[in-house]
């Protein structure tokens, strides 16, 4: 599948944004982290900023963005429509929570309820994003039991590492938060490795035989219907060389998982200003690495239309 940058950025940014939003909603709402105006402002601005930037980027993928409002109508059948509804609905509790926690400096009571609803909205939105991909049968690498948990794990991971960075900056970091961010990063690493392992061994029942209805033997494409690349090939025939994919997988592992894990581990022993710097670096490296991961998620996904063109 063609890795359109608008969609790569959209899913990465909203994943991190909703992860951070859920974290702040829960920790702030229940008073685990104190209601501090500047901490709240920076944290919520970062979370909502990533979400809004991602949602705006996603409209860049549309042929007719001025009609985007229509996408809220078909939530009964469409995961994309559900994503639109859930993402916008989450702004309501998130707005109330921001007023209570950031501007009024409160936690508990109705602020806790708003925080909880914000976190629930974030989780639902990430689930709908994951299901858009997991529900597509023509793409075996996406239509698997690994896709939905991946979106949830990566959202929790990037949100936690970002959250830890914000808390460290405001000298409110804790061993518990640090441990959670580190464990989430390791969980993300493990899940990505398991996903790659599964995809590399995937045996797909759909073949050139079932695609053409020709039974038995071999079916070899000898002539395409057209000489130049058409929409189908540009959008769904994207090919990535195996050696490039291997290199990008290493870059993903280094940036998204290994570097943040090492940096977060050093924060346990580093004195406060250095610990804060290491925490921010961990978050930046991870977001850069997740952009590469998401690019690969598209580039390595193979649509059944390739079978008609004899593409491996």
């Amino acid at each position: 599948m063609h890795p359109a940058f608008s969609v790569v950025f959209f899913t990465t940014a909203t994943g991190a944004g909703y992860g951070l939003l859920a974290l702040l909603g829960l920790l702030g709402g229940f008073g685990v982290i104190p209601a501090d105006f500047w901490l709240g402002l920076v944290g919520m601005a970062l979370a909502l900023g990533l979400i809004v930037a991602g949602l705006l980027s996603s409209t860049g993928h549309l042929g007719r963005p001025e009609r985007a409002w229509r996408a809220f109508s078909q939530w009964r059948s469409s995961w994309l429509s559900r994503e639109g509804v859930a993402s916008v609905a989450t702004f309501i509790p998130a707005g109330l929570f921001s007023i209570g926690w950031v501007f009024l400096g409160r936690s508990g009571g109705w602020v806790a309820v708003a925080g909880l609803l914000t976190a629930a909205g974030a989780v639902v939105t990430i689930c709908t994003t994951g299901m858009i991909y997991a529900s597509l049968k023509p793409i075996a690498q996406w239509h698997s039991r690994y896709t939905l948990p991946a979106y949830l794990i990566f959202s929790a991971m990037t949100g936690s590492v970002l959250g830890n960075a914000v808390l460290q900056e405001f000298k409110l970091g804790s061993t518990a938060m640090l441990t959670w961010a580190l464990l989430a990063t390791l969980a993300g690493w493990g899940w990505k490795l398991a996903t790659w392992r599964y995809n590399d061994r995937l045996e797909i029942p759909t073949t050139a035989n079932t695609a053409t209805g020709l039974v038995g033997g071999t079916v070899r494409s000898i002539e395409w219907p057209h000489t130049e690349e058409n929409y189908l090939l540009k959008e769904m025939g994207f090919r990535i060389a195996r050696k490039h994919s291997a290199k990008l997988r290493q870059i993903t592992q280094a940036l998204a998982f290994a570097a943040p894990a090492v940096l977060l581990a050093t924060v346990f022993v580093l004195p406060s200003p250095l610990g804060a710097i290491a925490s921010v670096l961990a978050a930046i490296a991870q977001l850069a690495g997740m952009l590469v991961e998401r690019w690969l998620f598209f580039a390595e996904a193979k649509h059944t239309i390739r079978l008609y063109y004899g593409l491996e």
Partner: protein
Amino acid sequence: MTCLPARTDKKLGLVIDLDTCVGCQACVTACKEWNTGGHMAPLTDIDPYGGHVDGVWFNRVHAYEHTTELGGRTVNFPRSCLHCEQPACVTVCPTGASYKRASDGIVLVDEDKCIGCKLCSWACPYGAREFDTDVGVMKKCTLCIDRIYNDNLAEEDRVPACVAACPTSARHFGDLGDPASAISQLVEERGGVALMPELGYKPTNRYLPPRAHSNRAAKVDAPALEPIRAEGGFLGWIDRMLSN
């Protein structure tokens, strides 16, 4: 509404005979010609006379070499929308632009509602939908709804343009939901198949497999050729002289 109808009154669709298709591309051009002025018009062409020709087509003819123990053969393979009973292209649509008609089962796009998110083309395993980059909306085969119900056409012309154009009658149109229809009988008789049935889209269109190899062709042993004798005499001498 992108929820699917529980049942459709008819299941209009195509049956394509892979035995007789000669890959002449007449259906392709007839489709383009009709539909670029039809319901989903225009079928935009980008850079039509340049080095990177691109454009929207509803029907594309591939060619394959099918090799089995019995030998190899070339199979020409027209590929277009199969008007599935379970079209995920419809259910994934966030705007309601894609829909399946309860009356005849035809899958259509309302171009005025389409936001061009392209998700329907990802959801279609058959590559039936093509995005029009110029208009910014998705386009697809309409089964020529503007021909098959068109009272201005003679009755025999009320078939999709691809069917009307086929010189070998490899394309058939009709109601596949009615077991008594001629087209259903044809599928029954020839063992018509659905494409990628394992994905569960339940395509309406059927493909008739190429007939088995046969030894029916007459075997006539031609008499052996006689060796050419050099022409003798005066004329032979003239011929040899002039041929040198």
